[in-house]
């Protein structure tokens, strides 16, 4: 039996290839994701190890968030005088303090040098041996006005030793002379971050930490372990300061990056999962067709004495081999995918230190298990059908269409759809994201089960214009799409999944966009919004006060955001200037007194107050990383404001509890009677000195919000494109198999005078109908999903569902075009059939 399976597979290499393709792409996505994230994780492990390679212990302020809090979280500083104390500890060979913060270069064109997500860092030059910096040219910074630049930034912006360069800080912009170019260990920079290195006094001054260090690093003398040194140093530091091994600092750093990456990797795996789900549909459909086509052969086997079990296993065995083959190819392809993504990162300026791709056994096992699993599972139902073929079927001739009643299938479909819908809603309204995923998957399975019912009428309607456009070939194409509703429906179902999700995301995006515009009207009073391009909190605290001095402006308020904790959960807060906040935002205080803000109290969103069972006049225990737990009085409540979140404090309160304040946005309202143009000129007068900020009026701000949503929509659609491509392979596969099955008929048509061109047009027609059918079903499901999700997001302020009609129609048209493309290969094959051979085909 095994040999028969293998022989059969090898005899149909093309079929094997097409079937496997569905799984290959999904598996390559899975493998690529694992390889990439493992590689990046390893890279960061190495990187953070390198950062701390020269040191053994680190002295730093304790975090209010407790041990193990990530280095990202801002801590308090330690007094610089502590350095001498540490240096005097026996066993300390060398120690130095470091101090750093936000520092962004301005390029030759006067624009801020930006990164793709990585920070723009500045810090001080520390003693050689303690620092991972490796000078490439020039010398270290020694006095005020000198800076050392990382090699990547220097190269990209042609900064050379001796050049003057401007640097943006929290405070005023300053000019420096480049005195050196540095690498970071082996790499040219620190994983994409830009580096500005100053002498220690300059660093302390520009980062507003005069007389302070962020941390002190110490190296042990020969023979003393890091742990021993840690304990010795711990004995001399004051309360509120902690001493940890540098290894621990490195691990914390790597952990925090890996946590951030974890989300990224989960997201990619979700899309890989969708692709595999779609692949499963195609495998199922392919095996169903194969079993139908081989009815006679299988019946003959049964007649010759093969048991049901043997027939079943022959089909499952074939699936196993296809799955194994596909998984191995997918694994190989996945490594290429990872390499491609890595090259892409490099192209974006994220220079990962050279380290080979990491292929963990987990990657290989997961790829194989998932690939083989999906294939084998998908083959079980066709295999069972194959095993039920009676030996008598060998005697009956002709192509056997799949039997079984559509009614049972439809009832099952309705039940599955209903269950899926229920799970989806349950998940959306509090049940959790995995329930949403399960529900969506069930709905798609249910719709696939139901769709044969709709296939014939829908194909009739979709194909209605075909006879007029393409005459007889159009008519035959349409009828071919209708002749086997299960096959048409199952092939279309694969596309339904991808397009359903795209449609759902489109509906969401359209709804979010429309609500975002509403949010601006409803909650924003300012005429101008100033932010950085990527909404990083990187606006100099100098900007808002200077803006406030412009006579054309009535009110200016800077906004800050920060994180705090309560009961182990991290929450966000906003801060602003109590004097002006109410003029730039529509802040509707519903209870208590907003004046409390200025007294260091907190305002809580009305709903949040009720949710958390808080009370106006009561206290809220807020834990800050820098200052630990503080009890803040609840001054009052405010009506929901999408721009403000749930907790609001004053900028003074923020400064008291967070380090390194940088503004997240600055809002400005022009004085009555000042023309918008004059007001804008006034604002631009100030912002011109801050190259990293962007200025928008309300309309531009709305547009920007829209652009951002579009960007995310584009990204998600691109990731879903893979599953759509897989679905198109499914159409190719079905058509190719159908053509094989209809060889005789094609021969006949060619004999009685159908041209090759007409044959191609006939196949194309069938393909377009299948694709459009799948698309329309997908859009229907997607729009319903969109309704459900928007309904669930009601609390988040997405009020009404917006159906992007034009976009959805465009998707259907695109699906039709995709159908034409999917038909190219099968159509060519069909047109090339040798007429005589086809006529005498068994």
């Amino acid at each position: 039996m095994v040999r028969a399976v293998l022989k059969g597979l090898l005899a149909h290499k093309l079929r094997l290839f097409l079937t496997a393709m569905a799984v290959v792409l999904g598996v390559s996505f899975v493998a690529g994701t694992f390889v990439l994230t493992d590689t990046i994780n390893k890279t960061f492990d190495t990187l953070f190890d390198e950062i701390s390679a020269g040191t053994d212990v680190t002295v730093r302020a304790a975090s209010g968030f407790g041990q193990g809090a990530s280095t990202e979280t801002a801590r308090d500083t330690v007094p610089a005088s502590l350095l001498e104390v540490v240096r005097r500890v026996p066993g300390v060979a060398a120690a130095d303090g470091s101090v750093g913060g936000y520092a962004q270069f301005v390029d030759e064109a006067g624009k801020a040098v930006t990164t793709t997500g990585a920070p723009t860092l500045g810090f001080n030059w520390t003693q050689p041996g303690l620092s991972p910096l490796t000078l490439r040219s020039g010398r270290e910074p020694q006095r005020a006005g000198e800076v050392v630049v990382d090699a990547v930034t220097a190269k990209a912006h042609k900064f050379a030793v001796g050049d003057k360069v401007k640097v943006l800080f929290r405070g005023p912009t300053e000019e420096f002379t480049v005195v050196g170019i540095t690498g970071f260990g082996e790499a040219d920079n620190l994983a994409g971050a830009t580096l500005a290195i100053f002498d220690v006094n300059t660093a302390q001054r520009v980062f507003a930490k005069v007389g302070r260090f962020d941390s002190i690093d110490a190296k042990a003398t020969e023979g003393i372990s890091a742990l021993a040194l840690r304990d010795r140093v711990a004995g001399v530091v004051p309360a509120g300061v902690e001493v940890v091994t540098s290894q621990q600092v490195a691990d914390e750093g790597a952990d925090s990056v890996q946590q951030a990456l974890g989300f990224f990797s989960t997201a990619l795996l979700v899309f890989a999962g969708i692709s595999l789900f779609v692949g499963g549909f195609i495998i199922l459909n392919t095996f169903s067709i194969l079993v139908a086509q081989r009815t006679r052969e299988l019946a003959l086997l049964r007649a010759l004495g093969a048991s049901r079990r043997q027939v079943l296993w022959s089909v499952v065995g074939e699936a196993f081999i296809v799955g194994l083959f596909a998984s191995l190819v997918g694994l190989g392809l996945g490594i290429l995918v990872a390499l491609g993504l890595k090259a892409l990162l490099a192209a974006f300026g994220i220079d990962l230190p050279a380290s080979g791709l990491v292929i963990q056994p987990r990657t290989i096992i997961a790829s194989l298990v998932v690939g083989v699993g999906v294939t084998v599972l998908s083959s079980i139902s066709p295999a069972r059908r194959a095993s039920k073929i009676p030996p008598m079927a060998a005697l009956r001739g002709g192509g056997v269409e799949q039997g079984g009643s559509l009614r049972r299938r439809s009832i099952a479909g309705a039940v599955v759809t209903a269950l899926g819908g229920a799970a989806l809603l349950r998940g959306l309204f509090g049940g959790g994201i995995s329930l949403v995923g399960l529900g969506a998957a069930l709905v798609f399975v249910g719709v696939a089960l139901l769709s044969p019912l709709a296939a014939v009428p829908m194909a009739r309607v979709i194909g209605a214009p075909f006879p007029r456009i393409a005459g007889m070939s159009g008519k035959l194409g349409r009828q071919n799409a209708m002749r086997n509703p299960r096959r048409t429906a199952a092939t279309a179902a694969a596309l339904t999944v991808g397009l359903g999700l795209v449609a759902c995301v489109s509906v969401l995006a359209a709804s979010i966009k429309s609500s975002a515009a509403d949010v601006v009207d409803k909650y924003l009073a300012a005429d101008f919004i100033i932010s950085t391009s990527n909404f990083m909190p990187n606006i100099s605290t100098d900007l808002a006060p200077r803006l406030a001095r412009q006579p054309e402006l009535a009110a200016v308020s800077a906004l800050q955001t920060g994180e705090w904790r309560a009961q182990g959960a991290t929450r966000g807060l906003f801060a602003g200037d109590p004097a002006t906040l109410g003029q730039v935002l529509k802040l509707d205080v519903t209870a208590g007194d907003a004046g409390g803000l200025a007294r260091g109290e907190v305002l809580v969103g009305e709903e949040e107050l009720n949710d958390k069972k808080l009370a106006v006049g009561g206290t809220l225990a807020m834990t800050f990383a820098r200052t630990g737990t503080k009890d803040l009085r609840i001054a009052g409540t405010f009506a929901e404001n999408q721009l403000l979140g749930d907790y609001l404090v004053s900028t003074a309160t923020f400064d008291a509890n967070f380090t390194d304040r940088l503004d997240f946005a600055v809002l400005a309202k022009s004085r009555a009677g000042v023309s918008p143009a004059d007001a804008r000129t006034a604002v631009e007068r100030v912002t011109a000195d801050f190259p990293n900020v962007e200025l928008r009026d309300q309309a531009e701000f709305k547009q920007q919000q829209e652009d951002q949503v579009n960007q995310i929509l584009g990204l998600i659609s691109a990731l879903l494109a893979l599953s759509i491509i897989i679905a198109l392979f499914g159409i190719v596969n079905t058509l190719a198999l159908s053509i094989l099955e209809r060889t005789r008929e094609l021969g006949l048509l060619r004999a009685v005078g159908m041209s090759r061109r007409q044959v191609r047009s006939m196949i194309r027609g069938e393909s377009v109908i299948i694709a459009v059918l799948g698309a329309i079903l997908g859009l229907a499901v997607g729009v319903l999903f969109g309704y459900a999700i928007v309904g669930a997001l009601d609390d988040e302020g997405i009020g009404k569902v917006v159906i992007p009609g034009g976009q959805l129609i465009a998707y259907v048209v695109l699906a039709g075009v995709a159908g034409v493309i999917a038909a190219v290969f099968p159509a060519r094959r069909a047109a090339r059939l040798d007429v005589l051979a086809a006529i005498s085909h068994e």
Partner: protein
Amino acid sequence: MSNGTPAARGTNLVKVYGEGDAAVRALDGISVEFAAGQFSAIMGPSGSGKSTLMHCMAGLDTITSGQVYVGDVELSTLNDKELTRLRRDRIGFIFQAYNLVPTLTAAENITLPMDIAGREPDKAWVDRLIDTVGLRPRLSHRPSELSGGQQQRVAAARALASRPGIVFADEPTGNLDSRASAEVLGFLRTSVREFDQTVVMVTHDPSAASYAERVVFLADGRIVDEMTEPTAEKVLDRMKGLGD
């Protein structure tokens, strides 16, 4: 298409399959004419080259050497597109089985070649064929709802529907019982006698051959005999001589 030019003719037809030792001379120098308005039969033992001759004459297959004319067109001068058009407009086909497109009704199958060409069928002519072949009540049925005999009658009507210059039929009654055969053959004879059509039919069956006006006997890729005014007995006798 009447007197003078034959409906189809072949001169010195040679068809070799394969190469070297494995080469088979399926047609070994055949010259033959099929006069317009005549019902001809081709007979011969299995493997004698009947189907090959028919396929080559009908432009479904290419010959190794020699010339084939359909009407006054020499087939070797035509490219694939022109051959396809020739088959569509000037030749009718009836095969032994699987003659019909399963998704089309009987009526649609009958007008298929014209529909492919995008031409309006000659309604009066098609109606006449349908009535002659006795398919009026079955027109809206699909092939799977028709008996084998009915299917072959639909195929015969289809072959004649575009008034082709010649109809080639390869064992059109090979799968039918004698009654169904008689219906198909009677229809072909009527179409030749009364409607002035030209039919060339390959058959194994002497009584089928007796419907024709002329029988050509093949053996080993050559024409070995001809007979006009055949009867079943005469044909049977001749066939015995060929050792079929």
